């Protein structure tokens, strides 16, 4: 090793560690630094790119995943924080039988344009419909308030999620 002063100075904090995360029902080995976010691990190491990195600071919801069934911003969680917790991404949700109604409702209602925010909205909608199966459009709107869509396809998204709720 070249221990010049500058590389010693580069020793930022604790070292990399290997750990296992439970993602979409599988235990996946990952290699992280303490500062590595859950989002970066999902996207760069596990190639689960459905969660998008749009703001990387907990403002827009495009990176939303389920952690123990709760919708959470993956950019705001460190990988080290979610050991022993069940992580489900949009790719995992899309395999489920009860996802179909959301898929159909989003397509029927044209609930997206560029699609970049869509997976985040869909994960949050899935969680909202599970938690509040009887929710009306107004309540669902507030369940999705933590998500930004710059194409502003908002009304169609509300229509789609309400529609999916009715399709139970």
């Amino acid at each position, binding site marked *: 090793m*070249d221990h*010049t002063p*500058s*590389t010693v100075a*580069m020793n*930022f904090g604790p070292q990399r560690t290997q750990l296992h995360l439970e993602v979409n029902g599988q235990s996946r080995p990952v290699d992280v*630094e303490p*500062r*590595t976010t859950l989002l*970066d691990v999902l*996207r*760069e190491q596990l*190639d*689960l*790119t*459905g*969660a*998008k*990195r*749009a*703001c*990387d*600071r907990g*403002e*827009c919801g*495009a990176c939303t995943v389920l952690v123990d069934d709760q919708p959470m911003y993956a950019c705001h969680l460190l990988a080290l924080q979610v050991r022993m917790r069940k992580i489900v*991404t*949009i*790719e995992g949700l*899309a395999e489920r039988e009860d996802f179909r109604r*959301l*898929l159909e409702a*989003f*397509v*029927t209602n*044209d609930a*997206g*344009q*560029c*699609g*970049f*925010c*869509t*997976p985040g909205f*869909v994960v949050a909608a899935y969680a909202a419909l599970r938690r509040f199966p009887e929710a009306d459009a107004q309540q669902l*709107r507030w369940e*999705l*308030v933590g*998500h*930004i*869509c*710059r*194409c*502003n*396809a*908002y*009304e*169609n*998204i*509300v229509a789609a999620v309400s529609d999916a709720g009715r399709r139970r």
Partner: protein
Amino acid sequence: MEQDLAVVGVAVPRLGLAEKVRGQARYTADLKRPGMLYGRVLRSPHAHARIVHLDTAEAERVPGVHAVLTHQDVPQRRIDADLLPLEPLLRFVGDEVALVAAESEVIAEDALRLIRVEYEVLPAVFDAEEGLQPGAPSVHPQGNLVGGKTLVVERGSVAQGFAEAAQVFEETFHTQMHAPVGMETRAALAEWDGDRLTVWKTSRAVHASDRQTLARVLGLPLEQVRVICPNMGGGFGNKDEGRLAVLVALLARKAGRPVRIEYSRAEEFVAGRNRQEAHMRLKIGIQPDGTPTAIDLHATMNAGAFVASGMNVTRRVGQGALYLYTCPNARFEGMTVYTNRPAGGSFRGLGAPLGHFALEVLMDQIAAALGVDPLDYRLQHHVTSAGQPGQRRTPPDQVLPDEPVEGGVPFSSNGMRECLLAGAERIGWRRRRQPNGAGTGMLRRGLGLAMGIYKGGTGREGEAEVRITPDGRVQVAVGGVDVGQGSTTILAQIAAEALGVPIDRINVVMADTGRTPPAHVTAGSSTTITTGAAVKLAAEDAKRQLLALVDGLPQAFDPEVAPVRREDIVGTARVTSGSNAYLTNAFAAHFAEVEVDIRNGRIRVLRYVAAHDSGRIVHPRLAENQVSGGVLQFLGITLREELYLDKHRGVTLNANFLEHKSTSIVDFPPIEVLFPAGPDPVGPYGAKALGEPPVVPVLAAVANAVANATGVWLRDVPFTPQRVLQAIHEHGKGVR
């Protein structure tokens, strides 16, 4: 020209949406290549500075770093007239200084901090007016006035028009700098195979901008450069500049491995392209009955450090003033000024919403001064199908140019009247509108309207290839980009219609220079009208070839039952959209109902009706989504969104969604979208432009509604509570 159409006009599912919902759709930053490194950019902390000394040794020693790129490593060939890949002179806070490629993003960021740069800080200028003063800091050697002169376009003589006027009205207007910031930040991935280069990039111009620029700046033959834009997470007229493509390619070449750069959100705000701040002065002369005799608009546009597509932005500011009202004398003057702000560029609607804001507010004031209902005033004076008075200057055998100023040219269709009437009916204008400022109490409601005109798509070249394979599948190849607006679906519909096959037989390939014919930048609301026309002709060409092969066979062409030969049948077409005889423009009338709380200055939008003439609507649901999205996007800009700059150092203060105040799902009511007009005789299947027109009238519609509620017209965007209160106060229209 009513036709029986099977696929055009039908709401088929948006192509690709299911993949997006399932999280399977890949965007540029989702892509990885074997051995790929991550690039990050070191950005200038100064608004104007010269690099005196640059030391990258420490950064290069960081384990995991493979390359550092500075101005000393790059070819000094221009990307744009005012832009080099990297140079020692920095022109805004956020300008590119150097790049690092490393095995992870965090390593690259660590290394950026170890690049030692000594700057000579230079005086900077942030205001366009100040930039024009003698002795102002020079942003570029050729001077701060872009092109060295004011853009002037005039029909008739405004001097004569004002001399004939009974009354002259004049006001100044201001619109802010704000950022388009699609959800996807800019990203690019470069991979070299020997001296062949492939770049995946967020781009709305893979052919016209990125591929050409890369070949020229890197000194490569065009055929060795391939540029691909996978799914794009929002364009809004942005993401067309070539600098990122060039830098990622150079970094990858130096590192000897593929490199991907993904902008952070803050970088997207600062180093993306924003909408230029505009100062406008508008003067209108009228006859005693209100007929305009002269319209004269002057705009000073703050272009920031690089002009990018800024001249087009400026030109579009004049569009409303020159065309919206029948008037023999109209002039637009635009000055585009370099400053040390983040660079401006094109953003949905370019300058058109800004000029329309000034025009439609002043026209509302004129109607009020005359005691005429603003709806009646517009019904009487908006430009009709006849076009503007005057003599045609373009030779009759030539396709009318992009934005002519001349009179004597009719519109191919003009549904403005239908839009005004349908919108007024929907919002209940005649029944519900009170005189301006008639309301009392704390919460005052008002109705306002504004019109919009937008030249979209004509005057451009479009190319398409339609390939029918022996198994009866159809592949449509065009070089444009589906920036999220849904052009993949629209073009598939047009091909299916022309061929007479079900849409599920069609596959559309876009935005890959290796697989598609050349294309212009996806801009100016041109895809349906230009590329759509080319797709229609190419499909008809393919159908003709196939029918010739099955000559004598009964009736309809069916590719599935006609596998007459093993090779593909390839139809091609190249068109210049538009016509010799007509101007083709989209029209709109918007109606807003607002409630102004005069205690705190808050404006609530209660209802919003957007009536549009975009010719035949190829896909009703996509079109509604586009209009609704455009209006909401601009309601955010009308009331809140602004990019704030520290006026002393030029630092962008709110480069994030929350502080730039992005519109959320609970802010505005559903937009009521109407398409009251019929098909156009020029566009493919009668379609006209749609992408940008929805944003054009929004600022003025809200301003006029606020004026109806309070009696005060706001002339400074965004309409923040503070400005509303101040305006009400100054005019003595407060609590009474």
